[in-house]
Structures are given as structure tokens and as C-alpha cells.
């Protein structure tokens, strides 16, 4: 049986599935239920200084597919709206009742050393395993000079991280905001400030949609709306890329990464882990389905590891990193063509019209006067759009047609005015 115990920046947990700092981790009762359901750790909902913030109603916008599956969620919630001492008492009680689980406390206080000096000992006294610095919240808090406002300025990230390391013994995880042009800048700052780990991503600045009756952004609060933080399945690709960038860049690659963003299944989690994440955090999936989803995540991960012969998480962590490269390193001599499996084809013709209207006119729609869809190899550039618009899984596949013996990338390609001579 696979050993899925996690050790993230020195913080141990029975499995790598943590709940991200958010409403699911806002109170003792929620966190206890989460632990009972099997979650390996929780990152407590971000604490701030008293007096607590005040939240609005409603707080969420959502993007659904036609079956009302929640593809994306956006929120305009702030950090905890409960007094600090109540939170601290509950954290302490929780940790004492579940000593084997990871309990991290997320923090966001003003960008002044005194504020951090004040709160860190209080958190440490709860027995929590570590802290996570919320530099990511894109709304509400950033307007007060906290959250993303700090996370977007690498110098502040470094400075606050350093304070935390100075004034506390606890491991420090820096949570990064995706609302920047290059995630490496704040990641490097975290490294410089002495962070034990980074976690990413926090939510993405967004307007979820406009209510056309009220002519205001969703969620509408008394006739008005505002930009909020986007999360859920839709943000996973953005999160994966940012994780990969940190994991494959020389001066950041050694720092432990807690992967966050759209994780809903064991497979999502494994994808983050093979890109270097030491563990993962989940918010929207739990908010959509409840805590029980962790059972599938644990079981799916264990089955995957057993089937692939991985004994521990370290056995596969980062395995895909060497294969994440820059575009200019891709082999331009590699050729693949689309193949339509006629036994599976249901004749919807979507491949044809997609290729005909928007690509390379490489799929015919008729043969011997009958509806029939077939790839014309000489026209097919192997873009694989057809395979994605095809509604039948595995019906259109991409098949390599070159001999597999040649390699040439853009750096040495004759069409590249800035080419370098091939070695």
C-alpha cells in the first residue's frame, strides 16, 4: 500500500490534502468536521487585527456549465469577520484534539513590523504548526494596503517574510497572488526573505459576470458589484503554470510549493505534485461538494501510486518538471496527424467545420456521396483542434508520422533571424 503521508516544510500530515484558508476553515466546527472527514491539514481562515472586518451579502459569483456543474467561483469575501481571541482559542482547542493533523494559521495584518510582532506570539501560543502569509487577497484587503497590495510588491513580500522569520519559530509559508505579470518576482522575494515554503495560487482578480437586469456585476450587493477573486476548476491551468515556473527556475526551484487552484480530484492533485508541489490545498471543490470529496482524493492517489509503483509522495514529486520547457526548445521536426476512428465516429461533423472554418481545411465531409469525415494528411498541420472539439473521447487521436530521428528547434531554425548555429 502506498504511503501518502506528507512532510511539507517540516510540517507533517497523514495525507497531502489540506483545506485552503477560506470559509471551510473559518471556525472550529468546520475544521473538526474536515479532520473527521479525513483532511490531512487545514489552513485556518486568514486572521487579522481587531476590530474584525465586516462582510457583505451576497458574496459569490459563479460560472456553471449546462449541467450546472460549477466551473468557476468568484468571491468578494474578506478575511475572518470574527474577533481574534475567539479564533485563537478555537485554533488551540482544535490542535489539541487533532495533534496528528497539520494546522496552519493564515495571517494578514498591516505592513508594519509592530503589527506582526504583536500577532505572531499569539499564534505560536496556540500550538499551530505554521503560518501562511496571505499576500494574495485581490479585493477589499488590498485597498487597505494588505493582501495583494503587498503580494504585488516583491520588496514588501521579502520584508514581511523576514519579520515573520525573525519574530517566530514557526515555519513560514508565503501565499502568492496570481495578480502579477511574473510570479517569479514575488517567489524570489519570498525565498530571499527566508520563507520555508510558498503556496499558490490565491484567487484571480475578476468580474464574474454582469447581471443584465440590474446592469451590475455579480454578485449584486444592493445594486452594485465589485471585482472579486476567481477560483475553482477554471483557474487550475493558470495555477499549474505558475507552480511549474517556480519549480523549474534555478533560484526558486528548491523552495517547497503548496499547490492551490481548482483542485477537485486526485488527478488534479497529482498533476500539481508532478510539477513539484509537495502538497495541495483545496477550497472550491470542498465548498461545492462538502468535505467527503477527500475520500476520493485519498483513494485515487493511493490507487495511482500502487498502479505506478510509487511508494511515497517523493517518488513522483516533480517528475514532469524536466519535460516543461520553453517553446523554443520544442522539436519542430516532430509531425503528428489527426486520425479519426471511424468505428467511434458519430458523424457530428464538428471536426470538419472547425478545421474548415477556422483551421486548415483538412477534414472532408463526404465520401461517395455520403456523410463521412476523413483527414487529408497533406493538409493536416497536426494542430489537434479537431481532437478537442470531437465529443467522443479517443475518437480523434494524433499519430506521429515523422521517423522520430530528427530534432531541430527554433533557436537554430533557418526561419529564425536570430538563430544560432546548431551544435
Amino acid at each position, binding site marked *: 500500500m502506498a504511503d501518502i503521508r506528507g512532510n511539507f516544510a517540516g510540517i507533517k500530515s497523514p495525507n497531502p490534502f489540506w483545506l485552503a484558508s477560506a470559509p471551510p476553515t473559518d471556525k472550529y466546527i468546520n475544521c473538526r468536521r474536515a479532520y473527521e472527514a479525513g483532511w490531512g491539514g487545514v489552513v485556518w481562515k486568514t486572521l487579522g487585527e481587531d476590530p474584525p472586518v465586516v462582510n457583505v451579502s451576497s458574496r459569490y459569483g459563479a460560472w456553471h*456549465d*449546462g*449541467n*450546472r456543474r460549477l466551473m468557476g467561483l468568484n468571491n468578494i469575501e474578506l478575511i475572518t469577520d470574527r474577533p481574534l481571541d475567539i479564533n485563537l482559542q478555537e485554533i488551540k482547542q482544535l490542535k489539541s484534539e487533532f495533534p496528528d493533523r497539520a494546522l496552519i494559521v493564515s495571517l494578514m495584518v498591516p505592513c508594519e513590523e509592530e503589527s506582526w510582532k504583536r500577532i505572531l506570539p499569539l499564534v505560536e501560543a496556540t500550538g499551530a504548526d505554521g503560518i501562511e502569509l496571505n499576500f494574495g487577497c485581490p479585493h477589499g484587503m488590498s485597498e487597505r494596503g494588505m493582501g495583494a497590495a503587498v503580494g504585488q510588491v516583491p520588496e514588501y513580500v521579502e520584508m514581511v517574510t523576514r519579520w515573520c522569520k525573525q519574530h517566530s519559530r514557526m515555519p513560514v509559508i508565503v501565499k502568492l497572488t496570481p495578480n502579477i505579470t511574473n510570479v517569479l518576482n514575488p517567489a524570489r522575494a519570498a525565498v530571499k526573505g527566508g520563507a520555508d515554503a510558498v503556496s499558490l495560487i490565491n484567487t484571480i482578480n475578476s468580474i464574474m459576470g454582469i447581471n443584465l437586469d440590474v446592469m451590475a456585476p455579480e454578485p449584486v450587493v444592493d445594486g452594485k458589484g465589485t471585482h472579486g477573486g476567481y477560483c475553482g476548476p477554471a483557474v487550475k491551468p493558470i495555477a499549474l503554470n505558475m507552480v511549474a515556473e517556480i519549480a523549474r527556475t534555478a533560484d526558486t526551484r528548491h523552495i517547497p510549493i503548496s499547490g492551490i487552484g481548482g483542485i477537485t480530484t486526485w488527478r488534479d492533485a497529482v498533476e500539481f505534485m508532478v510539477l513539484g508541489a509537495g502538497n495541495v490545498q483545496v477550497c472550491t471543490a470542498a465548498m461545492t461538494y462538502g468535505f467527503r470529496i477527500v475520500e476520493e482524493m485519498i483513494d485515487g492517489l493511493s490507487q495511482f501510486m500502487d498502479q505506478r509503483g510509487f511508494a511515497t509522495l517523493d517518488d513522483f514529486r516533480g517528475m514532469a518538471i524536466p519535460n516543461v520547457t520553453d517553446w523554443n526548445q520544442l522539436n519542430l521536426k516532430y509531425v503528428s496527424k489527426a486520425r479519426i476512428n471511424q468505428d*467511434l465516429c*458519430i*458523424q*457530428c*461533423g*464538428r471536426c*470538419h*467545420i472547425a478545421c474548415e472554418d477556422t483551421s486548415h481545411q483538412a477534414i472532408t*465531409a463526404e465520401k461517395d456521396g455520403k*456523410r463521412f469525415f476523413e483527414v487529408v494528411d497533406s493538409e493536416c498541420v497536426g494542430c489537434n483542434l479537431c481532437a478537442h472539439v470531437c*465529443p*467522443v473521447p479517443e475518437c480523434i487521436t494524433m499519430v506521429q508520422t515523422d521517423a522520430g530521428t530528427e530534432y531541430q528547434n527554433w533557436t537554430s531554425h533557418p526561419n529564425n533571424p536570430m538563430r544560432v548555429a546548431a551544435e
Partner: protein
Amino acid sequence: MNEISPARLSSGELAENFSDAHPRLNPQQALVASDRCYFCYDAPCVKACPTSIDIPSFIRKISTGNLVGSASDILEANIMGGMCSRVCPTEILCEDACVRNLNEHAPVDIGALQRFATDHLFEAGIQLFERKAPTGRKVAVVGGGPAGLSCAHALAVEGHDVTVFEAREKLGGLNEYGIAAYKVPNNFAQREVDYILAVGGITVKTGLALGKDIQLADLRRDFDAVFLGLGLGAVRSLGIGDESLKGVEPAVDFIARLRQADDLAAIPVGARVIVIGGGNTAIDAATQAKKLGADEVTLVYRRGAENMSATTVEQDWAKTNGVRIRYWSKPVAIESAGGAVTGMVFERSDTGARFTLAADMVLTAIGQVLAPPSLGAGDVLEMTASGRFAVDDNQATSLAGVYAGGDCVGNGKDLTVAAVEDGKIAARAIHARLTA
């Protein structure tokens, strides 16, 4: 003993039995169903619809919340899109062609979605069509069924003045007098007629029969063109005995009576009913007899299930409702006592063995035929081998300016949707002729 009697069931049971056979999708069901459409290229379903409704387009509009646009796609192609969504045998038309059948054996619910969109439009009371400026040209439409009304509507929209002559009291043809009651509850047929007439330019004259109250020659003289949508006025008889016995009657008459009843409890039905035939009419008569409270209803057909013109779905529907179907049996004699039917003798077509079924009611549904109205001297309409009006691709008959469509020309389909298409094509040809 003849046991034909009304009120076999309580009015509550009857209301339940004759309520909407396939209730409208709720908005969530419609969303899920519409999301299943793949928006196929050159979609096979469109080709399978006799009126070529742009199905992917109307379904996509449902999924985006554009119900008026959706209904417009439907009604522009088929003015009876509302009726058709209720009565079309979609399992042999659009839904049979759906590519979802291939891997999933479950087509997109096209008929139900069509109803969802059109119901919305009718209930919102939105008139989609605007009549063009009057042209002063006049067209006579004889027969106010699907073919006639479709033709009349399209011509009225073009600005021509249309007069519809209808022999019966109400417009709608078999929509009003023939279609099974549970397919069109809440007076849908008349609501649809009202929608069609509301475009304006259509004068309705009911209670006037061609060949009796009006003559073709007069119509040809007084109008610029004539369209005949007469349907099939006569029924085939069994030819095995006295069909005037008490308890024996054509299924269409039984159904028409039922459709026109204000109170279903007033419609008499037998305790043991035999229905002879293999089409829609037989299925509908048998099912409705059962739903009225008959103890035993047996549908007897001379050949096998696959030979029936009623689809498998329709046969299953009858069976689900408690109708027993006997295949490969043909009627050879009617038994009676005191002027009333008591049973029927059948012969197995395979073994030749005979069996008798007791019955107090026998409904015959072995086919309707055209009863050509007397046309008066001089006017001769060419007929097909099967005894219907012969027409060309434009629905033009052998008489100049006279067009025909629907069941009376018999393109072999005898479906509401086919009649609507005929009317539409004829209107196009008449319009071209009047504006040439």
C-alpha cells in the same frame, strides 16, 4: 350482453388519464437537454425534419436563454411547430437522425425542446409574424387542417387575401378532431389556430363543403389561386359483414367524439373493445378506449409488429397503457346478437387457426381514403394510383392555379408535419405565380 356505457371511471381518474402525456420540460430539464446538442455541422436532424427546422440553432438559443429567437427558428420553418412538437413521431424523424444515438442510444430530446420554446412564445403572447402590405390578390384555401392553415398563413404573411373554406365547425382538421386527446390537452389545437389567424388577412368560412356548398369552378373564377387541403374524408370498411351493427364504428368517429366532448365521462365505451388496424389511428383509439375505462382492449393487426405503420414507441405506449396487441391475425367474421356486436372471429395468417374474441365494441382503423368532392363538369383533377390528387414538386395539380397538399395528396407520410410542409411549398409556388 352489450355493455357500452359512459362514466366507467370517476372524473378524477379520467382527468388523470387524459392529462398531458408528456408534460413540458421545466427550465432546468430544458437546460440540461439543450446542453446535449452537439451543434452538428450540416446536422442530420435538420434533414430528417420534413419542414427542415434549423434544430441546432433553436436548441442553442434555448441554452442561451433566447427563447423567442428559438421559437422563431421553429415557426419560420413550421408554423405548426407547437403542434408538431406534441404529435410528431420524432423517433422516426429528427431524433432518429441524432448522432447521440450512435454511442449513447439516447438522442437529444428535440421534440420536447421544441415544445419548450414554442410554449414560451404562445404563453408570452408574442406575435412573430407581420403581414406585408396587401397585394390585393386572393387565394381560396379549402380545408382548414394543417396543410390548409400552413398554406393560408404563409400567403397571408406575403400580403395576399386568403379565404379558408372548411366543411366542419372548427378549424384545425385532425389536430382538432383526430389527434389523441392526451397529446394536445388544454385546447392547444384551437390556441394554435388563433395564433395562426392573428397574423391577419385570413377570412374563415366554416360549415362550407367543396362540392356541396361551394364549387371548384366558382373558386377558380373568383380567386387567383386555389389550394386543396382536404385530408382523407372516407374510411375503408372491413368488408366482412354488417358494419352498421350497434357497437361497430370507424375509430376516427369514436376519436372525434371524444375530442369534442366537454365531459369525458359522457363518452360511452365498451367493456371489451377490439380495435382493428396497425396505424396511429388504431393505437390512439385503443389507448383512449382503455383510458376511458374499458376492461379489455385488444388491438388486432394482420401482420407483424415491424409492419405496423405505428412506430415501436407508439406500440409500446399502447401496451404500457394496458392495450393487448395481437399480431398476424385478420378478421374474418363479426358475431352479433339482437343487432349488436358480441365478438369477432380472426384467422392466424401463419397457421390459419381461428379464434374468437368477445367484444361489445369494435373500432375499425384499417385506413382512410380520399373522398374526392364532386368537382362539377369540366374540371378534372388527375389522381394517383392510390386514389389521391396527383401533384408536382410545387404541389400543383393538373388544373392550372389549383394546388393541393397534405393527406389528400398522400406523399405516403400522412403526418401533420408533412401536411404543414406541403402547405408551405404550395404557398411559395402560389406566391411566385401571383407575383410573377
